[in-house]
């Protein structure tokens, strides 16, 4: 059972690994990409087998319905998928600009001798235990966001713990990951190319933008690494997302749940019910398919953009 949990939580890391591969050579990308797709495919089959009882009972409805009622053994994972999508979307929308800003600030704007220190500081925040983030989200971020949002629009956030809170917390958690990948690419802009950019009269800011275009595959890599982290984050999200795994919502200012946090929160008592374990596996299956879809998009982008 614990092994299962570990495997489920592995998927987003595989997606994240996929992100890192964007920065590798083409053939390498294909090879490792194929390996990762194969691994995810294998997991898909495994999850399909485990989820089979509930699929046999409910059909595809388990993916399309909402609600979580252990007493009547009626489960749906759509609300969790929506939660994963919404929190990840909020997180990515905030994290990518922040990561770009952090990368440019450290590599282009800070004096050379401070680069190392600030870079290490940012990298360090990536290694902090997620439970610390969760606690901070619980006691600081959640209440702050609630009062902030409610000041802007009265009664929007009735609870401090919402999909939005989780998204913002995730953004803060994943920014260093994306920033690290972008910075890595940024440092690889060859000196002659940098000279060309400045020689044609670019300002520092314009030069930064041109360089970012040069390293766009690293940005894409950082994006997928961060997205994988966001989709897979369990503990911190479970602490601030509100834990509403029953009611379907698309309002980010309401409490919700994500697939990873649903699995984490429900797994301990799942074995007491006949269909809850298969239902959780159905959630894992959905997360996997979702990850595959994202990879497909990624592959499409690479091939179209000839990155």
């Amino acid at each position, binding site marked *: 059972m614990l092994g299962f949990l570990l495997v489920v939580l592995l998927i987003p890391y595989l997606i994240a690994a996929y992100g890192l591969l964007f920065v590798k050579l083409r053939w390498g990308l294909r090879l490792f990409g194929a390996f990762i797709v194969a691994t995810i495919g294998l997991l898909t089959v495994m999850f399909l087998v485990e989820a089979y009882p509930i699929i046999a009972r409910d059909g595809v409805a388990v993916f399309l319905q909402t609600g979580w009622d252990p007493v009547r053994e009626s489960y749906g994972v759509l609300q969790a998928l929506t939660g994963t999508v919404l929190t990840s979307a909020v997180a990515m929308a905030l994290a990518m600009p922040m990561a770009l800003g952090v990368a440019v600030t450290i590599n282009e704007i800070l004096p050379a001798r401070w680069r190392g220190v600030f870079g290490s500081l940012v990298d360090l925040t990536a290694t902090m235990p997620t439970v610390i983030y969760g606690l901070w989200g619980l006691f600081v971020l959640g209440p702050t966001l609630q009062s902030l949002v409610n000041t802007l629009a009265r009664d929007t956030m009735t609870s401090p713990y919402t999909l939005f809170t989780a998204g913002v917390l995730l953004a803060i958690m994943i920014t260093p990951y994306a920033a690290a990948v972008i910075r890595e690419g940024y440092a690889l802009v060859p000196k*002659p*190319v*940098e000279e*060309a950019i400045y*020689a*044609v*009269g670019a300002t520092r800011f314009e030069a930064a933008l041109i360089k970012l*275009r040069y390293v766009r595959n690293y940005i894409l890599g950082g994006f997928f690494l961060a997205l994988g982290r966001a989709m897979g984050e369990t503990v911190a999200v479970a602490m601030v997302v509100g834990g509403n795994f029953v009611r379907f919502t698309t309002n980010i200012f309401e409490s919700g749940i994500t697939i990873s946090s649903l699995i984490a929160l429900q797994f301990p008592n799942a074995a007491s019910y006949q269909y809850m374990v298969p239902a959780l596996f159905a959630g894992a299956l959905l997360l996997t398919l979702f990850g595959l879809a994202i990879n497909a998009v990624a592959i499409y982008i690479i091939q179209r953009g000839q990155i």
Partner: protein
Amino acid sequence: MAKVEFKNLRVSFGASPVITGVNLSIPDRSITALMGPSGSGKSTILRVLNRLIELYPEARVSGEVYLDGQNIFDMNVLELRRKVQMIFQIPNPIPNLSIFENVALGLKLNRLVRGRGELFERVKSALEKAQLWDEVRNRLDMPAGKLSGGQQQRLCVARALAFEPEVLLADEPTANLDPENTAKVEALFLELKKEMTIVLVTHYPPQAARISDYAAFLYKGQIVEWGPTKDIFTKPGHELTEKYVTGRLY
């Protein structure tokens, strides 16, 4: 009147001095050849003139450099680079940008043109001058990194010419070209010097003899001798210069 004037220029990288007191004036609308063995500091002098040297945090520069009597270190660096364009020793197009973009970028950033039509004309004319237009006219959208080495070199010539600069710094601009294209670029420079001041770095004394009006011989970070090209080649005042121009010093 001198277009560019170096007064006691010194450059060091970290602890190692590279340019150790250069005084040189470069006359307007002429070609001045900067010759010297590898490592003598030719490229460094060019990098001072458009202040790209500032991209090297370990570089220390002292002394003065004047452009039209104005100290370049007091000038707005963007204005300086608009006026002083450079063709680099190693062709350095921005590889992911298209052929067109590489030439157009500087014009756009500095708002030197109005509208797409004028931009296109400027880019086209620069590519024509650089003898590249015919080879790329049908693939202006192709990433510049896919061009051959010699084509990249000419693309960089076009990029610099698009600015219609006052000063053109050319660091061995024909190093990657075949004799035919070399001859064309040399002819181009002879044409261009009617409108601009050219500083031509060359490893190859015959090229300096062929097209330059003035020549300076740089050795270990110092100007050994400079003056009209004819004098430098026919009656060098220094043994080192004579050895160099006759191909006995590398």
